[in-house]
């Protein structure tokens, strides 16, 4: 262990963490607006990765160019899932039911992906995937840096949409209080559908970077969803800023533990950090204060 290794781990944490932050933002946005925990987010990331894979293998479309196709496709997938299933969930058990429904959806997608692409691991390829440049002794993989920039661009776009457009005002109003939002004339149904679409659309970008930096198959989704859930709870469920901070810090801590102690404990450190934080702050880092036990 030396300072270069530590710096390098810090770099990895921030670059990779930004991608997790992007995927988790979609999840927390959906939860905040709709009270739905989308357990399918993990498999949707993998679906996004497989879409990039299919475009690349069959039509030789570059990964980043392919995003112009995969992001809208995943948006539509999200809309379809919301229309078919999510919109039917109502009542006090809505959140619990949403867990089961989205889990069922993820089983359907997992089974289908296994049948179409087999269970063998694949990884996305591009001329830039194995390449890296160095600053001092620290190496920066092209894909990681590109992923960081991509996450930055998409998150900025999301923030612009939420804080600078009329639609964003409706989304934030629905985040704060659905009933009041409906009372002032916001079409909460439409906002929910589009929010779900957006929350799912970010998985296309997240999946592409994930697939280029890891080899994956459909069952990789379990690892992904457990990390994403941990991130949004740590950040405070429904808090967008919280998802960003938690996403970066979780991967950062994991990588640090990996370097300082041993890689086998790095994924466990997420969950331990989560438990410790929740002991001190049950609502998560940036969560709203506990009010009524909903």
């Amino acid at each position, binding site marked *: 262990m030396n300072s270069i290794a530590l710096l390098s781990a810090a770099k990895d944490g921030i670059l990779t963490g930004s991608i997790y932050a992007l995927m988790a933002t979609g999840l927390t946005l959906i*939860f905040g607006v709709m*009270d739905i*925990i989308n357990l399918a987010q993990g498999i949707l990331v993998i679906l996004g990765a497989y879409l990039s894979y299919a475009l690349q293998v069959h039509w030789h479309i570059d990964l980043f160019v392919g995003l112009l196709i995969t992001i809208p496709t995943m948006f539509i997938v999200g809309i379809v899932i919301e229309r078919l*299933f999510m919109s*039917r969930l109502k009542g006090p*058990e809505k*959140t*619990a*039911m949403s*867990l*089961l*429904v989205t*889990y*069922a*959806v*993820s*089983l*359907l997608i*997992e*089974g*289908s992906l*296994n*049948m179409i692409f087999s*269970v063998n691991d694949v990884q996305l390829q591009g001329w830039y995937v194995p390449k890296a440049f160095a600053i001092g002794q620290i190496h920066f993989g092209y894909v990681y840096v590109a992923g960081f920039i991509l996450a930055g661009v998409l998150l900025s776009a999301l923030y612009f949409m939420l804080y600078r457009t009329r639609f964003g005002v409706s989304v934030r109003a629905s985040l704060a209080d659905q009933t009041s939002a409906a009372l002032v004339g916001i079409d909460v149904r439409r906002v929910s559908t589009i929010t779900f679409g957006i929350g799912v659309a970010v998985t296309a970008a997240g999946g592409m970077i994930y697939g280029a930096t890891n080899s994956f198959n459909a069952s990789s989704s*379990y690892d992904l969803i*457990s990390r994403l*859930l*941990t991130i*949004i*709870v740590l950040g405070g*469920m429904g808090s967008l800023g919280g998802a960003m901070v938690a996403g970066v810090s979780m991967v950062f801590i994991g990588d640090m533990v990996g370097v300082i102690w041993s890689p*086998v*404990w790095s*994924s*466990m450190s*997420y*969950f*331990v950090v*989560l*438990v410790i934080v*929740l*002991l001190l702050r*049950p*609502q*998560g880092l940036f969560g709203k204060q*506990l009010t*009524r*036990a*909903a």
Partner: protein
Amino acid sequence: MLQKKNLWWVLAIAVFAMYPIVVTNPLFTTIAVFTTIYMACATSWNMFSGYSGYIALGSAVFYGSGAYTMALLSLHLHMAAGSDMFWLVPVGGLVAMVFAVPFGWIALRVRRHTFVVITIAVFFIFQLSAINFGFTGGTSGLALPFITWGYQNFNTPFYYVGLSLVVFATALSAAVRRSRFGLQLLAIRDDEDRAMGLGVKVSAVKITGFTLSAFTVGAAGALYAMFVGQIYPQFVFDPMFDVSIALMTFLGGLGTLTGPLLGALVLEASQQYLTVTFSNSSLYLILFGALFLIVIMFMPQGVVVYLRDRVTRRAEREREAVAANDLATADAVAPLDVAVGGAH
């Protein structure tokens, strides 16, 4: 004097007790052992999550702890392979309860939907520990003393122990449901703040319920370990286990007594059967997911409640028809009475 309702339970137990005598094919008795394990777990899960409304997706923590208790104790005590090992089944349950206290204390401090996620996180802490610590045997798992009673009747003792767990879990669940404690759990489900306002010690009640429900799951895990003879961390700490017992309970009817029993009976038996007959697990995932969606979409309260509602509704319709008839007669005689009659 037995009530009619109790008679049905006695009959059901008798039918289940007869099963291995009638069905001797090892394939079907193996399926039956797994089915009883899941029936016990789903019932126990429902006793906390169904009654209190706190959906837990971390019960595999208890299942795994029970399984490892069975494996580690039987190995370190150098137990002879055989029926003595069944004594470790309740021990597995007790160890699971010991883990459940701090688990519940941490996880039950938060709101319901955060609780779900914390249970998942705690689950992963246990799974990763089992994979990474030395004494658990890591990913290669642990091999238990090899049981050598005959091949033909190998499953029968396991089946009866499993069935006793089902009976125990159901009796406990029924007792809780009728007790003051059970009412407190239900009050928490319906309105936690109001329950607290009315003097229910919500934290204590939740943690007690959570811990109590851990026992049967841990015992079932111990039985599983003894039955399969070799445990791996990814199978005893399996996220599918958590979701399966939740699904079984939802399928049957959350918060009902018969729901989880029925759900586990149908789902686990069919799942085991399908895995044996279909080797294509992807197709199975699709079928399972589709069934799951259909149930949740069309019978969100579970099959038991759905059927019960249909029966009640039909009875109501008949009563209405009768009432309408009476009304028509009454109308002909004295219109004034109708107003009084309508107020019933």
